[in-house]
């Protein structure tokens, strides 16, 4: 994947938190012959989830049903759904492809994607559940004047979701072209239509089950692959790694390297490569991943689907466990692919690259360990994965518009449940149409930066606002709304000025901002702006905001007055 990028930019671009997109979206995906097994399995998955959506639709009457599945999801189910929401096709195909090419480097992504979860638990999970009802804006604006903070949170949600969604749509189109042999436009329309169906009719209940089923299928499929790989090496990781090093050395020697060089190239897969060159980008990238996870609106929203703080806590433990397990499997799958796919000419083109493009390592490995039927299964799971992620994103954006903007800001809390639901459904339709449109427009673009932008925005806007409104009594309405906006803007502008956008996407030459991730500057910018504006705030409202802190704190810590599961 990186060989294709301009040499100087390679380490910078490789830092982007979505390697699959980086590769899948470079237009290297070739359309494959129509894969009937995969299509049949996918149709079975869609049939099952639509049937669940129908059942969920019958039980979706109130706003609470729509936004939070009535709050009746258990911690275990919610943990699986969170994992299903978070384990994207990008991490499965992208990280295994990264390991297939560079070995160890793939593990760095995995750790970055995981470390935000414990922080989310330790500082926020219980308090979120105790204060929130439908959206994270409920928490962020708890003791503040509603319109400014809600508007900030809604805009931030729409921004984060839009960028994430475009990347998913483009990724979906490319992957489906690759896996199923369907044309790009058909694939994008299918994804958009299904996502609308789940959210429109089934709301959070259907979305949750789509995510749970997908998580189980993906974890099951990946476990099977890792097991089949390990079984060939007597369940010894050392034997697996040793063989992978041999394969890489032999390949280097066949390509004309001297025996000494070849041995070094083989051993290189056991160490970090050229991946993180400058420390600023490294730390910045880490911050965006870690803190962004704790600010993603569709992840935060999942905390309101459980009945109480205890179940919220368990959700994170299950999510962290499943996601961590999944990344360990991916690591084994990547090394398995080096050996079983890398040495088999049947999976390669005449020029030695993988058939179907760089992201196909895990898919070819599925064929190597389980034949055509299992290849179809894994392809179908990869598609299902995208559906689960886009449904969750759409639901959180629809909630931001209907609950935060319409019901709270526009109607000042006097909207009735039916009107609110209607607005969220109209938003869902609009968003679905927009997602399809943008997916078609961006087909040829490298949209990898959009995923990194979504994480940076969440880390620089939502995360500081949540942390300071929850934990600092001095935070005021003005501080949260304007400080959060400054954090968002800083992340946005710096990303536009970064090499991935300025140079690669727009071709404007040397980028004014030299680092790949803005987080190391924009996260502190968000925190400092909120602190400073709150400190300087002498408005009458500021006194009300500060006076509201003690009561908010007790509610956040104890759950007194928390919205109950049955509350409509």
């Amino acid at each position, binding site marked *: 994947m990186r060989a294709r990028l301009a040499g100087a930019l390679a380490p910078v671009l490789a830092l982007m938190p979505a390697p699959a997109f980086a590769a899948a979206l470079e237009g290297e995906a070739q359309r494959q012959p129509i894969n009937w097994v995969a299509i049949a399995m996918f149709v079975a998955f869609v049939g099952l989830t639509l049937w669940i959506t129908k059942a969920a639709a019958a039980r979706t009457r109130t706003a609470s049903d729509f936004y939070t599945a009535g709050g009746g999801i258990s911690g275990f189910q919610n943990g699986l759904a969170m994992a299903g929401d978070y384990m994207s096709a990008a991490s499965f195909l992208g990280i295994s492809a990264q390991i297939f090419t560079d070995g160890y480097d793939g*593990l760095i992504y995995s*750790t970055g994607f*995981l470390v935000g979860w414990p*922080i989310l638990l*330790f500082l926020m999970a219980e308090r979120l559940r105790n204060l929130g009802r439908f959206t994270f804006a409920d928490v962020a604006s708890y003791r503040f004047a509603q319109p400014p903070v809600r508007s900030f949170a809604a805009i931030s949600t729409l921004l984060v979701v839009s960028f994430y969604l475009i990347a998913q749509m483009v990724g979906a189109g490319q992957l489906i072209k690759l896996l199923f042999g369907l044309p790009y436009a058909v694939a994008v329309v299918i994804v958009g239509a299904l996502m609308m169906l789940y959210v429109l009719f089934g709301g959070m209940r259907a979305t949750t089950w789509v995510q749970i089923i997908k998580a189980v299928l993906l974890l099951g499929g990946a476990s099977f692959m890792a097991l089949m790989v390990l079984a060939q090496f007597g369940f010894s990781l050392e034997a697996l790694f040793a063989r992978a090093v041999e394969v890489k050395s032999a390949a280097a020697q066949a390509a004309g390297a001297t025996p000494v060089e070849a041995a070094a190239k083989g051993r290189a897969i056991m160490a970090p490569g050229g991946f993180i060159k400058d420390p600023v980008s490294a730390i910045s990238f880490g911050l965006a991943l870690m803190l962004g996870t704790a600010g993603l609106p569709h992840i935060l929203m999942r905390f309101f689907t459980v009945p109480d703080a205890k179940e919220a806590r368990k959700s994170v433990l299950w999510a962290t466990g499943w996601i961590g397990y999944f990344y360990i499997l991916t690591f084994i799958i990547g090394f398995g692919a080096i050996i079983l796919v890398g040495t088999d000419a049947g999976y390669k083109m005449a020029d030695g690259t993988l058939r179907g493009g760089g992201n196909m390592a895990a898919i070819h490995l599925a064929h190597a360990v389980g034949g055509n039927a299992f290849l179809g299964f894994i392809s179908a799971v990869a598609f299902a994965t995208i559906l689960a992620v886009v449904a969750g994103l759409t639901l959180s954006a629809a909630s931001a518009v209907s609950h935060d903007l319409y019901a709270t800001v526009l109607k000042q809390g006097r909207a009735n449940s039916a009107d609110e639901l209607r607005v969220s459904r109209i938003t869902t339709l609009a968003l679905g149409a927009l997602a399809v449109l943008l997916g078609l427009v961006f087909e040829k673009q490298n949209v990898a930066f959009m995923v990194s932008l979504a994480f940076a925005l969440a880390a620089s806007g939502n995360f500081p606002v949540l942390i300071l409104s929850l934990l600092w009594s001095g935070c005021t309405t003005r501080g949260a709304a304007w400080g959060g906006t400054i954090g968002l803007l800083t992340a946005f502008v710096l990303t536009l000025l970064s090499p991935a956008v300025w140079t690669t996407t727009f071709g404007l030459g040397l980028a004014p901002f030299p680092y790949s991730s803005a987080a190391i500057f924009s996260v502190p910018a968000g925190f400092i702006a909120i602190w400073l504006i709150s400190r300087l705030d002498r408005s009458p409202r500021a006194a009300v905001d500060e006076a509201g802190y003690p009561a908010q704190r007790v509610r956040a810590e104890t759950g007194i007055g928390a919205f109950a599961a049955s509350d409509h």
Partner: protein
Amino acid sequence: MTQEAGRTDEALIAAVGADPRYIELVARRARLGWWLSAIIFAAFVGYLALIAFDKALLGMPIGDGVTSIGIPIGLGLILLAIALTGLYVAYANRHHDAQMAAILKDHGA
């Protein structure tokens, strides 16, 4: 909403908020949260710093094998994240919840 025994939420909140046992418990819980956050934060930033400044160290083989010490460190970070969340949940389930329930019960919540 919890409005039992004729008490409003506000009165209950004020009473609980002033209870020294509550103040003590919340401080202890916050300390645990911040410590665990600091541990995972430091571990991850330290890992990134190692990658940025000393790649060769992570690539050193363990004993006579090919497995490098970067492997247990990277996988260990994943396991650390899971272990710390497990620790927090176990501690909260065993101690915090029961103590908070006892305090709330005393205030008639």
